[in-house]
């Protein structure tokens, strides 16, 4: 088909009109700023579980808390209203969200028997049984009823108990009570080491 000059010009003009009518815009596109990711999250004030400083934190949570939903943490940062840390957090505290949602978190005890080269997952019953057996054996072997001067002491020198900074007051009370009942004297706490 031959195109005459007149037809070509007509087509060009018509094309131009159509393109501008469709809103072909030469204005530059602006940078799209990411929306604040915590904008619709619920805030839960809580305390960092790691060390004895006890920094205040805010956990940002998605999920309405309705009967058929589960909530999930999306972000954790320092609580600016807390007098202890004023919103600041150390690197461990700043990454504490991982303690709740990391896929690499262990949810059952790991056991590596004598001579074995690999760790394997075991259930809690096995772990508690194993622990109780070992605890009793050590206690029986190292229990001291009287010291060198004949005074009654009833203590267990062969076991030390290291608590945790992540335990609450009540847990710490229970740990201390139980271990004292067993005769332990070496009771310490991770945050002091």
């Amino acid at each position, binding site marked *: 088909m031959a195109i005459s000059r007149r037809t070509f010009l007509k087509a060009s003009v018509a094309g131009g009109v159509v393109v501008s009518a469709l809103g072909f815009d*030469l*204005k*530059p*596109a*602006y*940078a*799209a*700023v*990411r*929306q*604040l*990711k915590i*904008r619709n999250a619920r805030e839960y004030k809580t305390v960092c579980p790691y060390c004895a400083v006890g920094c205040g934190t805010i956990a940002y949570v998605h999920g309405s808390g309705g009967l058929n939903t589960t909530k999930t943490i999306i*972000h*954790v*940062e*320092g609580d*600016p209203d807390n007098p202890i*840390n004023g*919103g*600041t*957090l*150390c*690197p461990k*505290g*700043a*990454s504490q*969200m991982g303690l709740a949602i990391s896929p690499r978190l262990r949810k059952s005890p790991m056991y590596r028997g004598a001579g074995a080269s690999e760790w394997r997952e075991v259930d809690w019953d096995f772990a508690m049984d194993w622990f109780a057996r070992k605890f009793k054996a050590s206690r029986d072997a190292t229990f001291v009823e009287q010291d060198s001067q004949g005074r009654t002491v009833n203590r267990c020198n062969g076991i030390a108990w290291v608590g945790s900074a992540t335990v609450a007051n009540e847990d710490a009370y229970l740990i201390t009570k139980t271990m004292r009942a067993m005769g332990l004297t070496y009771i310490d706490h991770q945050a002091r080491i």
Partner: protein
Amino acid sequence: MPDTLAIKRISATPSALIPLESLRSGGPVYSKLVDISKCIGCKGCEVACKEWNDLKVEQTANFGSMQSHKDLSSNTWLLMRFNEVEVGDDLQWLIKKDACLHCEEPGCLFACPAPGAIVQYQNGIVDFNQDQCIGCQNCVSGCPFDIPRFDKSTKTVAKCNMCIDRVEVGLEPACVKTCPTNAIQWGIKEDMLALAEKKVETMKRRGYEHAALYNPGGVGGTHMMYVVPHGDRLEDYSLPAHPVASPAPLHGLSVLRRVGSYLLGFGVVSALAHFLAVGPESPEDEAWEPKP
């Protein structure tokens, strides 16, 4: 568009083409102030940066330094560089918070040929827009501080955006908020300059006679400023002593656009004049004959 995101400059775009409503001035001009003498090297800021910006974790290996990563990357926007330097008889850590300094005269923006890929806001933040990035890496060579990093998988460049999503709603950047020793401070630039002056004075009184504020004039000042105890040894902090960025390419582009539009206008006008003076061309005028 809220005032906190009023635009100052857009890459490869003459200011005449930026709509007026987005160029509104006003609103606070922010700055970070990093007091290196207060930094204990805990790297909390690195973690907070990764966490807030959802940046991918990178495997690190010990290479004989307390530094976590060897270099910045498109997924590591903030890196504490642990420069081990002998000062007098002492071996000291001259730590540098290596991240975008958000220059007033940003070399990356001036070098960028993609309209809208780099935007400078009135509040001082220079942000990359990966949607408009063409992956040419001109910004990497244009940056006097060697900050932007190319991502081979997305073919775009990334760097610290000063948590612009937080700043927009009135929050401080994540690294500022988390710093446990107040080494990183945040506020309007005037306040930070006044604070820096006090800090430098205190340091000088305590015997650091070369203590100085790092706010280089070659790039028009920065929106992350440092107070360094050893101001005479900037190179040891891996801070360039005289960084320079020039808006010449952007001005050049603006001139080129103007010349181009004049030439186009001239062409149209001459064609019209020719049409009126000589009239339309008729087939009889044509001197050539088609070959058989």
